[in-house]
């Protein structure tokens, strides 16, 4: 796919945290998210992403393929805005936690309904992705991981859980046992493990993601109407209800408000590690999570009894 083409006027806006690319041959809109200094879903970045979705919805037929990628080297997305959560929990601001969660659900809901408005979606994951970052990747019709990318739901390590669709999406793609293991262990998994679990559709060598993406789009495009119809039927067969997503995020917000100081300190520690990774240092959030896992010594997933843990 060629890049650097002028964007259609309908989606061309001066974004601060997003970088859009347009490929006219197959009507592919690629959105690269780059939130500095931490690559996460900040409220401002989510507002921009929602604007992109609004523009796509308002112009039916303009965008046929939506691609979510990262504009930050080695990181796809670290998910929720941890330092914001800490601040809101300290301020005992349940309303704002719920507001954040509802904005996430709005994005989730758009991606969940993308086929319905004629858009085929692909996530290109070329670096680590955690929590809400993984949730957002799994929402896409196609999930491509480069081999070095690692992912997981670390929230349980600080007594929270991934609340923006993790259970729904992981159960739907990988099954209940996989979701249970991933969400309750907080472990980080390799691209290959996630592929074997059925969560990732394609694993490619490092640096080969763009070529793989091109192949996916080229292969899907001639049969796009059929694919989109089938994906809508898939939603009927394995539905995710908006009300259910909302109920879970309400529970998430209430749980967040009950976090203790130790949990908040761990979140802050992880947020600081996220900066190190974005700064290009060798060790970042994933390494920090592994250290936190050891520190907290919650070893039940390391007993070797789990089938999932044998996927090495």
């Amino acid at each position, binding site marked *: 796919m060629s890049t650097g083409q002028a964007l259609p006027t309908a989606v061309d806006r001066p974004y601060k945290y997003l970088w859009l690319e347009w490929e006219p041959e197959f009507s592919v809109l690629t959105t690269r998210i780059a939130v500095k200094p*931490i690559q996460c879903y900040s*409220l401002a970045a989510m507002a921009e992403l929602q604007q992109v*979705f609004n523009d796509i919805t308002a112009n039916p037929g303009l965008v046929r393929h939506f691609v979510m990628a990262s504009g930050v080297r080695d990181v796809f997305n670290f998910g929720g805005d941890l*330092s914001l959560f800490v*601040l809101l929990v300290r*301020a*005992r601001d349940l309303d704002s936690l719920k507001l954040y969660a509802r*904005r996430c659900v709005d994005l989730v809901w758009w991606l969940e309904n993308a086929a319905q408005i004629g858009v085929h979606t692909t996530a290109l994951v070329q670096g680590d992705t955690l929590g809400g970052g993984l949730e957002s990747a799994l929402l896409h019709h196609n999930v491509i991981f480069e081999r070095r990318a690692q992912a997981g739901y670390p929230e349980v390590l600080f007594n929270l859980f991934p609340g923006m669709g993790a259970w729904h999406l992981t159960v739907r793609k990988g099954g209940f046992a996989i979701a249970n293991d991933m969400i309750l262990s907080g472990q980080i998994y390799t691209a290959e493990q996630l592929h074997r679990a059925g969560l990732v559709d394609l694993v490619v060598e490092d640096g080969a993601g763009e070529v793989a993406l091109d192949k996916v789009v080229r292969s899907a495009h001639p049969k796009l109407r059929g694919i989109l119809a089938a994906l809508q039927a898939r939603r009927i067969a394995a539905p995710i209800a*908006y009300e259910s997503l909302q109920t879970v995020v309400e529970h998430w917000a209430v749980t967040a408000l009950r976090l203790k100081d130790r949990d908040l300190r761990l979140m802050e520690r992880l947020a*600081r590690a996220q900066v190190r990774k974005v700064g290009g240092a060798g060790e970042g959030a994933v390494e920090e999570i592994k250290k936190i896992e050891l520190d907290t010594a919650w070893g039940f997933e390391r007993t070797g009894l789990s089938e999932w843990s044998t996927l090495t």
Partner: protein
Amino acid sequence: MHHPAILLPDVTQPFFIDLVSRTDEARRSFETNPRVLRIVADGLSVERYRQLLLELYHVVWHFNPTCAAAASRLADQHSEIRYFLYDHMMEEKGHEEWVVNDLEVVGVRRQEIDQHRPSNALLAINGYNYWAADRRNACSVLGMVYALEVIASVYGGPIASAIKESLLLEDDRGISFISSHVTMDAEHMAELRVVLNKVYDSAAKEAIVESTIFNFEQFTRLLEGI
């Protein structure tokens, strides 16, 4: 089954979350500043810790007069903010002596504290906060309070631990000011949210946003100079 529209509904945000969002970059720039992260990770040498406390002394010493200046200029419609400031001033009263005590533990005499010339960043912080309370908008003081409480509640704990470890200090001796403000300011944050959500006029909101960004930026400069 009923499903809401895919598009984002129009939600009116309470001012606290609006302030948090609009000042997000300045807060993150402080929290992720390499110097700040290094202090959190490695602590400080005794010389640099003395420097930090000398600067903090002037932050604390001018905190209450700034709040008082703002309280005296607030219109009657902002009586809740006035009461918030009164309570806050009562709690902060005398805390500069905690800084003095910590300075004595690390070998700085009172006479040296009086002779300390604040950094330009600190002069800018205090100068701006007095000016903003006096001439910009009295509500701007809440921006100063918000920035200082984020800094204290989020970074007070790790910085105090790192300094304690690097200087081999015992108990809270020498770190009493920083460590005591961690839990205290976490409480204040909840109270501050309540009062911020009662600010409705847009000029006051803009002044608070401006003040927050300025205080975060200058505090970052201050720590960079340590």
